[in-house]
């Protein structure tokens, strides 16, 4: 199964409540996937600065001296906020690639980018959201996932969302059947893929297409040709939010839109407590149709013949 939620705010007044709203949405999806959970939050950018979110199974030793080590290695001040098993490293954006190379082996990268922070762990959505205090987080948009594993081990690295490019993340409900071949192809093309997970291959594929110059919308559209299997994807970028279902569309999806937000849920239950939901436009996204919203553009829905 797996459960997905997503929320893209249009009304800045709701931004302080993004974390709380996403947490509540994800908790209602707990019975769709009880083994691990994760949330991606897009917060405020600070000019020239980036966030590198890292994880350690043993944070007391894993994060000890990490900020000082990076400050010395990079020759620029690196600040660190530790939240349970995760730490957010704040550093100059230009030094992000060097910082990743300088990380000690006991920490793993959860996300990197200007505004994106991903928190994910093994456990129930409520427990995972609580340990990182997600409900206190503000932001413009975010995505959550609760996992029932099918394709790879129940580990932190196997949990969603997956981040493969700066400020890009993806969550997936379904299973891909050509992920091994595609992983080999992407790896040969120089794309770094961390796990044996099928969904990470989809995330890496989209990042690879965008690196070649495609927009997220175009990358999703070409995914219809290149990704084989069952999927409902919800993806996030620095300023955008997209949804794609495979042509068979057996994985559930419901969307709602008001003047204040665009929301996604695997089921309507996830949306039922959002403000103004009784008068929201609610619909089931069409199969093989790319839906995409950005801060600057009007919403689009691009159907593609299967």
């Amino acid at each position, binding site marked *: 199964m797996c459960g997905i939620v997503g929320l893209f705010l249009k009304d800045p007044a709701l931004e302080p409540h993004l974390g709380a709203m996403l947490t509540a949405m994800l908790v209602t999806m707990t019975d769709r996937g009880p083994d691990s959970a994760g949330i991606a939050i897009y917060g405020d950018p600070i000019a020239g600065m980036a966030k590198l979110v890292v994880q350690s199974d043993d944070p007391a030793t894993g994060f000890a001296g990490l900020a000082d080590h990076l400050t010395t290695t990079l020759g620029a001040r690196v600040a660190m906020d530790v939240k349970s098993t995760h730490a957010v490293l704040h550093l100059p954006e230009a030094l992000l690639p060097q910082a990743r190379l300088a990380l000690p082996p006991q920490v793993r990268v959860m996300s990197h980018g200007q505004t994106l922070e991903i928190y994910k762990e093994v456990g129930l959505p409520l427990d995972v959201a609580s340990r990182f205090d997600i409900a206190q987080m503000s932001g413009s948009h975010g995505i959550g996932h609760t996992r029932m594993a099918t394709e790879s081990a129940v580990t932190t690295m196997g949990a969603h969302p997956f981040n493969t490019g700066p400020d890009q993340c993806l969550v997936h409900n379904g299973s891909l059947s050509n992920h091994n071949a595609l992983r080999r192809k992407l790896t040969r093309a120089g794309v770094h893929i961390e796990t044996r997970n099928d969904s990470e291959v989809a995330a890496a594929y989209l990042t690879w297409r965008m690196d070649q110059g495609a927009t997220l919308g175009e990358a999703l559209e070409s995914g219809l040709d290149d990704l084989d299997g069952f999927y409902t994807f919800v993806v996030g970028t620095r300023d955008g939010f997209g949804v794609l279902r495979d042509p*068979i*569309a*057996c994985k559930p999806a419901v969307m709602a839109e008001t003047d204040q937000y665009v929301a996604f849920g695997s*089921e*309507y239950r*996830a949306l039922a*407590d959002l403000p103004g939901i009784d008068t929201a436009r*609610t619909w089931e996204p069409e*199969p093989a149709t790319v839906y995409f919203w950005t801060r600057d553009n009007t919403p689009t829905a691009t159907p593609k013949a299967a």
Partner: protein
Amino acid sequence: MHTIDLSVTPLREMNATLQALTADSNTRVWEIANPKGAHAIACGLDAGISVTVMGHTGYYCAGMNKQAAITVKGSAGPGVAENMMSGTVVIEGDASQYAGATGHGGLLVIKGNASSRCGISMKGIDIVVHGDAGHMSAFMAQSGNLVICGDAGEALGDSLYEARLFVRGSVKSLGADCIEKEMRPEHIEILTDLLARAGCDAKAQEFRRYGSVRQLYHFNIDNAY
């Protein structure tokens, strides 16, 4: 009228209350408040009662219904009225995938659009969709009638047995073994009755009929891989 508020009453208790009603029960009109997309609302009913659900429902609403008249004042999640035996289910909004799946009897009315696989493996149920229906509707449908007042998606009636399909709008494509058939007076009569019972003002004469060409009934070596 009795109201059961799902923000107060547990779902199982609500279903147990409705399932315990019989032909002799005194309270025959029920309303379910605050469904909030819950699963399996008003499932397995077996009495001629009326139930109105005041909002959107999740998976398998009104499943296995016998006799009851169930109305959803909103949209329904996957598998609404699956395996219905008799009675009436009316969805005022849209229905998600496989609405009316394997239904043996009764009438399912969807006033909005139906998603994919509407009426999959239907076995005698009548389904009237006021709007459009998604891909692979009436897949392996065995008997009963599927009426689509709008357009039908890809692969309508794939691997069809003896169900009758009526479509007023366009059909994106027909599935294997499904062909257009002549609309004879008896079909106009059946369809006129169904449209009237479904509260639809479309004219039977505006529809085309589709059915099985019966080529998949017997083994054919050309179909083997």
